[in-house]
């Protein structure tokens, strides 16, 4: 092993060492007509709505890798803090890591201030991080929660812009879901009404967009309680097989039967314990 001559001590964080190599490999692969594997995305429908006492967040559960469904039942509603949850669309790894980092930071912040964290704090942390990386972190988020100032709902785009609105949708199925919201949203709804509205919006995304599918997950956040309903509804059920190709015993008649016993001697017996630590 050769010692690498470094003059400065190494820093943590992203390392751009392989970018040039990747660009060269991409160029070479394109010349031969071969595609490098695509990142797993959550071509998604996520949405949220503010109702009288809190926030309802909804998401589908399909994760895609190009044209293939990578995960039929993935969880897109991520925990940020006991009173704040976040739905994530875009590159699956990016949404996962970003929400986990912000959740840790918010926990440390809450321990330091001694108060329940606010949704605006989470929003500010997320937008500053996403802007720092100029959109290269592909995470489009719907952030919702209830804090001391009431219920709040934000949508956060990969480049770092945010919107604070009473109802938001993100992902590839966002237009289908937004159509349902625009038709039936009214301010100060009851919880049941809000859940039905979010359910219908996600269902619209599931049935009209190829990137969304499988089940509908809901998360109802009110002051002091969170109801994470997973799954709320299985919109796409896998069918049950109606036919059976197994043959009964006796379908084929047996003409002759010959049995040859094999005499084996036990020569040596040894026990090796498996390392299960």
């Amino acid at each position: 092993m050769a010692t690498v001559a470094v003059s400065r001590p190494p820093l943590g964080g992203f390392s751009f060492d392989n970018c040039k190599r990747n660009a060269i490999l991409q160029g070479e692969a394109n010349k031969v007509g071969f595609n490098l594997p695509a990142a797993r995305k959550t071509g998604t429908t996520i949405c949220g709505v503010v109702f009288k006492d809190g926030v309802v967040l909804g998401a589908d559960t399909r994760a895609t890798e190009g044209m293939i469904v990578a995960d039929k039942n993935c969880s897109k509603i991520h925990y940020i803090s006991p009173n704040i949850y976040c739905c994530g669309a875009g590159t699956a790894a990016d949404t996962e890591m970003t929400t986990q980092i912000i959740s840790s930071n918010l926990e440390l912040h809450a321990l330091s201030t001694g108060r329940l964290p606010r949704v605006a704090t989470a929003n500010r942390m997320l937008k500053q991080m996403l802007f720092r990386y100029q959109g290269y972190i592909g995470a489009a988020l719907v952030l919702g929660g209830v804090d001391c100032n009431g219920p709040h709902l934000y949508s956060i785009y990969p480049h770092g812009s945010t919107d604070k609105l009473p109802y938001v949708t993100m992902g590839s199925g966002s237009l289908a879901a937004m159509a349902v919201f625009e038709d039936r949203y009214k301010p100060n709804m009851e919880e049941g009404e809000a859940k039905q509205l979010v359910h219908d919006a996600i269902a619209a995304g599931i049935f009209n967009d190829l990137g969304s599918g499988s089940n509908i997950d809901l998360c109802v956040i009110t002051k002091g309680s969170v109801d994470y309903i997973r799954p709320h509804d299985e919109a796409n059920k896998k069918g049950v097989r109606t036919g059976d190709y197994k043959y009964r015993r006796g379908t084929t008649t047996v003409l002759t039967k010959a049995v040859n016993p094999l005499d084996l001697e036990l020569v040596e017996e040894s026990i090796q314990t498996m390392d299960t630590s």
Partner: protein
Amino acid sequence: MMRFCVLQNSRGLHSQLKDSVPVAGLCPQGAYGMQDSLRSGFTSVKNELLPSHPLELSEKNFQLNQDKMNYSTLRNIQGLHAPLKLQMEYRAARQIQRLPFLPSSNLALDTLRGSDESIGFEDILSDPAQSEVMGEPHMMVEYKLGLL
């Protein structure tokens, strides 16, 4: 060993300049000092001068730029003494380090910066404490003292 801790890092400012550009051809990257064609392709001036990713330069100087911004805001709000005092404390804390090839905990530095209360990608990815290669001790100390 205590003797080294007291001396200043004379390279500090120069290596952190935004436009400090590595010179092509004189010391190619890669093990053994040779150009690693398999991994970085053929040498070209464009390859050496341009950053390999749009975020590379901005990430390299991120901490510096944040500090500059914070100090200038502080100066505008509280007057010149505030950033001066903070920078003095920062320089004092930065001197409490082990030799350059060994990992230092930077505890005082973290507390001053406030990064002991936050987690970012620099704590999760490419943790220097778990790096697979170690710098050559003699070269790194010579570089730090400016003898190289």
